[in-house]
């Protein structure tokens, strides 16, 4: 295959997948509105966002199941736009797995090999190898419906990777599994991606899953990219109030930038002035939010007075909901909780919290 | 049997069940007559009902075969009069289902036309079991506007002029009789044809098939085919002739000199009917052969009864319509009989149709 013949050097210097100014509308609904994205070779990238954010539409356009509205898709420097799905060097693990019910597990895995340059007598052996990779060789002669969800998931994975795609797409692959199985599969997926040295593009609405798997997370909202970066960056340095809220459920206290100060900005909020680090490029007078995660807020003898409204036991600690200045804060609290209605004082370390944009 | 017949059978069965016990509880003598719907219209029977203390229940049949099947299946107990075809009476007598007609109680039988008095059909050992009741002919009916000359039976076997525009009734008995008449086989041999004669019949019937537009099964259907011009000439029953003439189509009716197929239905009394019910049954038979009923049947049918009881009460036109004006027409009739090898006839007919 022409793509496979590209030099290793070429692969390294150029992103594997480039998405340029991609749009897609269904009638008057704009599902994807101007996406630019690059995927590095051998990376694990997650598209993260709530349902309806356009992440699945984006994935389906890359896979070739939806026609693109406008824009360009490049894989290894080759335009994908007009290539039908069956001619793209890309494979997909579908949300429903989409295993062929009339074929055995082995036949499912071998399906794609008949369209690759694989000698006929090697096809079954290659399929068995792929099944071995996902520890499913014992089930080769079963029918898909005879397998558990996790087993089907592995077969779907084997069916895709056996074709050695340049890019593997995973559409909410773990959403049908129970929590425990999901955790196990997360580890297996990450492990598999490392072992095979393949590039995975994974769609999910589950931020925990995104953190567990990704080299890079792309947070999407309303058909646009809200922020992309390494998981640590996204978590500790959210660009917008939306990201801060969606990832880790930070409480966002609106305010106005007074000016640069120290390592960050001085910000005026309903709960006073603070000097806090934040996203680059905020100008004086700009509206911004102070993002406070539950573990960054503590109860103390000093600080802002707040009224406790709820207390939820979480095992390791309690999650308190408190209201101060009309704003709801979540506080992780280790000790015995104050009773609802009680007034407490909230404090935080200004160096550990973060200022984000109000909107993208 | 088609679906409508089935339905009729079922309804008739239901009627039997429903009315059976009811009429017996009545003070008047109740009798049940199994017959064709067009023979038992209320106004035809009103004078009889008015003059007698008899309550009459009617159950209608869809085909002759259905009537026979019902009686054989044990229906004879509840029925007091049936209406089999003259050629079918043999089936009933062979199955020992009938009792002989007591002519002493049917004075109107004296007025039977000679041909009905003399026919050997409907009789066993000189006893009459099915008394001829009403009759008619099945002629050739044709579109006079679309044919050059009056046809005879040969139109179904010779020449190309009307290829694909002819129709034949889908009925083995009559179909084979017509072929035999065309071949000149006399009536005396017709129903006992040997293998050689049957082979000849089969040969000409195959020729006939190639000339047909279709075989017809219902007279209403044939009437439509005449009206649309799909068929210009058919071995038919009489009704389309009058019906389409009334609609302004120039129809013709031919009674071939080689022979005209006559049909006749009889009235018969099942075995086991006795006492007051038997008296009532014979009273009805006598009425059906008498002038009141005959006149109404001639006008309303139009059909001829088997006696001359009503003939003088009819106008020339009415007489002509039911073929009793010139009685010599009866001489050219070939009455339908039940051939002893009827199974072979049916097989032959199917072989021709399937060829």
């Amino acid at each position: 295959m022409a793509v496979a013949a590209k030099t290793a050097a070429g692969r390294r210097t150029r992103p594997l997948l480039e998405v340029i100014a991609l749009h897609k509308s269904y009638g008057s609904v704009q599902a994807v509105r101007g996406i630019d994205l690059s995927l590095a070779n051998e990376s694990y990238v997650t598209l993260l966002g709530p349902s309806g954010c356009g992440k699945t539409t984006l994935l389906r356009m890359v896979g070739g199941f939806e026609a693109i509205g406008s824009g360009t898709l490049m894989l290894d420097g080759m335009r994908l736009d007009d290539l039908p799905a069956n001619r793209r060097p890309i494979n997909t693990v579908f949300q429903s797995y989409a295993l062929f019910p009339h074929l055995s597990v082995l036949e499912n895995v071998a399906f794609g090999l008949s369209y690759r340059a694989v000698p006929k007598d090697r096809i079954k052996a290659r399929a068995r190898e792929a099944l071995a990779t996902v520890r499913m060789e014992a089930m080769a002669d079963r029918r898909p419906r005879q397998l558990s969800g996790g087993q089907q998931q592995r077969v779907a994975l084997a069916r895709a990777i056996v074709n050695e795609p340049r890019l593997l797409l995973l559409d909410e692959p773990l959403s049908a599994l129970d929590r425990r199985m999901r955790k196990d599969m997360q580890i297996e997926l990450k492990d598999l991606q490392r072992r095979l040295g393949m590039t995975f593009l994974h769609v999910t609405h589950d931020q925990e899953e995104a953190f567990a798997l990704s080299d890079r997370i792309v947070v999407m909202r309303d058909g646009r990219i809200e922020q992309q970066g390494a998981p640590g960056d996204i978590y500790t340095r959210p660009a917008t109030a939306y990201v801060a809220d969606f990832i880790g459920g930070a409480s966002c206290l609106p305010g106005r930038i007074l000016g640069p100060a120290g390592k960050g900005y001085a910000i005026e909020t309903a709960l006073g002035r603070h000097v806090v680090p934040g996203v680059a490029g905020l100008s004086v007078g700009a509206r911004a939010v102070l993002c406070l995660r539950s573990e960054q807020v503590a109860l103390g003898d000093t600080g802002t007075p707040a009224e406790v409204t709820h207390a939820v036991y979480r095992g390791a600690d309690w999650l308190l909901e408190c209201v101060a200045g009309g704003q709801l804060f979540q506080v992780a609290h280790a000790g015995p909780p104050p009773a609802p209605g009680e007034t407490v004082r909230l404090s935080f370390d200004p160096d550990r919290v973060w200022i984000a944009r109000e909107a993208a | 049997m088609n679906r409508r017949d089935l339905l009729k059978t079922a309804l008739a069965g239901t009627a039997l069940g429903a009315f059976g016990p009811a009429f017996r509880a009545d003070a008047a003598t109740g009798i049940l007559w199994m017959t064709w719907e067009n023979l038992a219209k209320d106004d035809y029977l009103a004078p009889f009902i008015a003059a007698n203390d008899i309550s009459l229940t009617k159950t209608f049949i869809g085909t002759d075969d259905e009537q026979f099947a019902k009686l054989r299946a044990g229906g004879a107990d509840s029925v007091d009069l049936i209406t089999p075809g003259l050629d079918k009476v043999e089936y009933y007598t062979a199955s020992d289902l009938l009792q002989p007609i007591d002519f002493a109680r049917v004075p109107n039988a004296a007025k039977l036309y000679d041909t009905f008095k003399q026919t050997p059909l409907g009789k066993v050992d000189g006893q009459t079991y099915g008394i001829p009741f009403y009759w008619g002919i099945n002629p050739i009916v044709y579109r006079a506007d679309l044919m050059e000359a009056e046809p005879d039976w040969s139109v179904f076997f010779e020449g190309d002029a009307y290829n694909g525009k002819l129709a034949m009734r889908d009925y083995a008995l009559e179909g084979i009789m017509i072929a035999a008449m065309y071949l000149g086989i006399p009536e005396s041999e017709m129903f006992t044809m040997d293998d050689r004669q049957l082979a000849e019949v089969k040969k000409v019937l195959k020729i006939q098939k190639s000339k047909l537009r279709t075989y017809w099964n219902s007279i209403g259907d044939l009437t439509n085919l005449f009206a649309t011009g799909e068929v210009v000439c058919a071995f038919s029953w009489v009704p389309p002739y009058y019906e389409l003439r009334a609609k302004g189509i120039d129809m013709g009716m031919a009674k071939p000199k080689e022979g005209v197929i006559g049909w006749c239905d009889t009235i018969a009394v099942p075995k086991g009917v006795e006492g007051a019910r038997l008296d009532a049954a014979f009273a009805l038979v006598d009425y059906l052969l008498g002038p009141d009923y005959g006149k109404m049947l001639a006008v309303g049918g139009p059909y001829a009864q088997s006696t001359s009881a009503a003939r003088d009460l009819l106008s020339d036109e009415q007489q002509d319509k039911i073929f009793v004006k010139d009685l010599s027409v009866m001489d050219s009739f070939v009455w339908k009989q039940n051939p002893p090898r009827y199974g072979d006839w049916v097989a032959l007919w199917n072989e021709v149709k399937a060829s």
Partner: protein
Amino acid sequence: MRPQSAGNWLALPVVAALGALCLAPLAILFAYSFFSVDFVTISHDPSLKNYARILQSETYRGLIARAFGSGLLVAAITAVIGYPVAWFLAKRAGAAKTMLLTLLLVPLYSGDLLRIFAWRVLLGAEGAINRSLIWLGAIDAPLQGLLFSPLATHIALTYNYLPFMVIGLWLAFESLDDAWLEAAADLGAPGRDRFRRVTLPLTAPGLIAGGLMVFVMVVGDYLTPQLLGGASGVTVISAINDLFGTAFDWPLGSAIAWTMLAILMLCFGAGATLIRRSSLVAEGA
């Protein structure tokens, strides 16, 4: 008594009624098929004479073969027409689906006689098609072969029974997940392979079920051939009818009926096996 066995007992009257209504007449026919008849007397000495007669008779063999040939032909035609129609209904009709399904069934609400006469009006020598063709100058004289011919019979049979094929296939297409086709494309299969390797095997149960329904109904339909087939409209069913009614040869009629039934049961057995195999796949039993 456990609830389950109570249920079994409660079902007994239904089973008994079904047995009496469906099986008993068939059993009687079966017994008759070994008897013989002399005029109106049925002889109860069992023999295989009737079956031998069927075997030896070119007419009955031919009629039986013709019936099954027609059944196969019409099943095949309705499959070819019904397949894209069912696909469209299930996958593309969208909001119009209910309306289109209703429209599809409308012909079934009219009587079969009504439909047959409608075909007469269309196909007759003076019918709509012939008149239009003459008016257009395409032909000089009406095409006689349009009506009262095997062509007319098969057009009407196809029309009559197409809905049953479409319904069978439609159900199969409804349960055909588009993701399977996307997966096949994803794995490199071009359009025709997606059809051959995925769509066709997964809709096969519908095809077989629809085909069997059409097949059986065509084999049993004597009215359409009789009223539209013209001089060649004879069917094995009308021959059986003749034997029972006109000829009073119930034994031979029963034997032909049972021969038909046996062949039909074989076809059903084969079809059911095929469906079970493909639904084994679907159900994973």
